[in-house]
């Protein structure tokens, strides 16, 4: 009896070992090749990993950033006379998968640097991995402060939520002359929760009114029915409704609000700047004001033009999304760092990145602060005739 038990357990372990070695055995071959290759041609090829959610809930955002990186790669395929090779790793909008994808990039593909990911929580999943592996990562649009906080190897080319929230609050208070604001936020979305908090703090500061936020209601990612939340907010008849969240839900919120006969202006963040937001929202989203990274109506740098022309040529939409431009910049920043470092060694790249100062990117001049966060202007846009139209630029130092 007992003997059998022992045997069984031993067997079981042998089994799991066998299964493991068997399957990873299959994996061995291509990898070995991959590694051999990378050993031989390491001299000529520099690998940059695209770490994005191509499938799953954030698939859209990931795809848009991938587009930006590929576009940049098309324009600038070489650095230090070496070819730059892009390696895509889909993190499936899932944290566990994201961690696997990231470690796969650094361990298996031996990339020199990583770009991504759309969605702060996914970037965070890679955080400790790139840190331990000492491979620098540059996020394009991950605006959650936690992404770079206490991690020397994570950078980002976009501004942070605290600043964005402040700008939006200032805009609401000064430009829109709002006294009372209501907030509808996607409570299961770190970005939305953060932005909402920073916004309300700043707004209270600017209005000097403790109860300037008249209502704050929540919804969950994936919800589609918001009439109850909308009613709860409308009841306080605010001057402005601030609704940080994913564009998918947000478009529906605004649509439903208009259907309910509520015409309070809506204010939102960078995530809304997607073609889908306009398509789904239709005329309901007319007049919606958002803060974002960059505007094509108002090219900031030489690079902006280059990017816009290139996009007009190869882009899949008639207008590039901001995150596409940011991903484009992420690639450029890395290339610039490699150039300055004069080597593709990840640590060297990291050090060079940290030094980045007033780099001329498509979305403006990029310098990293001690956290590895870009200090950048915020661009305000309004939806007019189902297009995002440039409104204003607000820079950190004023």
């Amino acid at each position, binding site marked *: 009896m007992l003997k059998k038990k022992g045997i069984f*357990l031993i067997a079981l372990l*042998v089994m799991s070992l066998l299964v493991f070695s068997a399957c990873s055995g299959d994996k061995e071959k291509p990898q070995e090749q991959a590694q051999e290759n990378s050993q031989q041609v390491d001299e000529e090829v520099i690998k940059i990993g695209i770490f994005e959610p191509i499938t799953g809930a954030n698939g859209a955002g990931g795809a848009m950033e991938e587009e930006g990186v590929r576009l940049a790669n098309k324009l600038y395929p070489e650095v230090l006379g070496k070819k730059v090779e892009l390696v*895509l790793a889909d993190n499936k909008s899932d944290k566990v998968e994201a961690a696997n994808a990231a470690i796969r990039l650094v361990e298996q593909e031996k990339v020199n640097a990583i770009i991504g990911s759309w969605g702060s929580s996914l970037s965070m999943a890679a*955080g400790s991995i790139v840190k331990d592996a000492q491979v620098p990562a540059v996020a394009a649009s991950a605006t959650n402060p936690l992404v770079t906080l206490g991690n020397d190897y994570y950078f980002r080319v976009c501004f942070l939520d605290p600043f964005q929230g402040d700008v939006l609050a200032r805009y609401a208070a000064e430009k829109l002359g709002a006294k009372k604001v209501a907030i509808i936020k996607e409570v299961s979305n770190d970005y939305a929760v953060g932005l909402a908090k920073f916004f309300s703090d700043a707004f209270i500061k600017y209005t000097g009114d403790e109860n300037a936020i008249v209502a704050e209601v929540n919804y969950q990612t994936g919800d589609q029915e918001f009439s109850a939340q909308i009613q709860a907010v409308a009841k306080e008849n605010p001057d402005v409704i601030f609704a940080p969240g994913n564009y998918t839900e947000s478009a529906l919120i605004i649509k439903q609000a208009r259907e309910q006969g509520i015409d309070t202006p809506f204010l939102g963040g960078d995530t809304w700047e997607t073609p889908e937001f306009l398509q789904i929202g239709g005329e309901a989203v007319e007049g919606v004001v958002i803060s974002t990274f960059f505007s094509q109506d108002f090219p900031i740098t030489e690079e902006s033009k280059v990017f816009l022309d290139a996009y007009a040529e190869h882009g899949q939409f008639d207008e590039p999304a901001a995150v596409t431009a940011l991903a484009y910049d992420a690639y450029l920043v890395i290339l610039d760092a490699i150039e300055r470092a004069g080597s593709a060694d990840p640590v060297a790249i990291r050090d060079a990145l940290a030094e980045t100062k007033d780099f001329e990117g498509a979305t403006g001049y990029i310098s990293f602060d001690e956290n590895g966060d870009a200090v950048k202007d915020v661009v305000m846009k309004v939806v007019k005739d189902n297009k995002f139209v440039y409104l204003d630029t607000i820079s950190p130092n004023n």
Partner: protein
Amino acid sequence: MKRKIITSLIIIGIVIAILMLLQNTLDNFKLRILNLAGIYVIFAVSMNLINGFTGQLALGHAGFIAVGAYTYTLLVMDSDLKSMNFFLEPIVPFLSSVHWPFLPAVIMGGLLAGLAGLLIGAPVLRLRGDYLAIATLGFGEIIRTVFTNTQSITNGSLGLKAIPMPKSFLFIEMKNAFTWWVWTAVIITVIFHFLLVSSSYGRALKAIREDEKAAEAMGVNIFKHKVWAMVISSFFAGIGGALLASLMTTIDPLMFRFTLTFNILLIVVLGGMGSISGSVISAVVVTILMEWLRFLDQGFMGLPEIPGLRMVVFSTLLLLVVLFYPRGLMGNEELSWNKITKMFQRFHMQPREVRK
């Protein structure tokens, strides 16, 4: 008694040998998959206890995993890490200063998950079949929703990051301490469940699965036994959750959607409801397969890269297995020698076939 000690010593010896071998040969990526596989083994085996052996269709596993993960995380983080993470809304005072070592934190994670299992099981285990399924699934979702909204405790959807990983195993500093912890936990889980189901209580659980009325007529207190099964199952789920949090070094509520429960349920069914060895094998295989199938996404054999193709293939494989081996890999049998030899051959073939 003596013989048991000897056998368990042998087992442990072998495990150590295997782990030695693996952790020296495998790179971090494979090592990570190995750890993940171990954690999924814990999830699958524990879920099998309530679903496979007791025959109660309970789908709240993700919730218990979440409880374990969060408990562990909040206990092991030191106050600096916490103040870094809780930059929006400060953490409730009574948690801000606690700072436990790895092992006690993991165990506490299990205990609280077990408690959750008790609180949830007590009311809903009176329900049967699909009603139980939907009710437990609901509880899983409720737990998640609560964690999303209680920001001052869980940091809500911002999640928690920089969760420390153990640097030492049993006070011995070593490179892959975590792998050792995980697989120790796996061994303990497997042995525990194996001993449990082969004990008189295990027989009672099986009796409940076979025929509740008859079991009751034989003097088995059905409710008590169901609740026990639920509590133990959720305890180990919590342990697994704690380990998952440590492996991920970051967690947030969205990790614990009911799709996680489904994934585990799939593993259990593939391995065979009521077969511990089955769960172990299928957990390992599925975890590895999921990674291995990645090449499908990257575009292969001249095909362009098709994001998501991997999942299509995976779900197809899954359907095929369910359709052609409805009882799973092992049914409710356990591994036996001749089975092993069969497997042995099968898995030895595999690499060769691939080489061709």
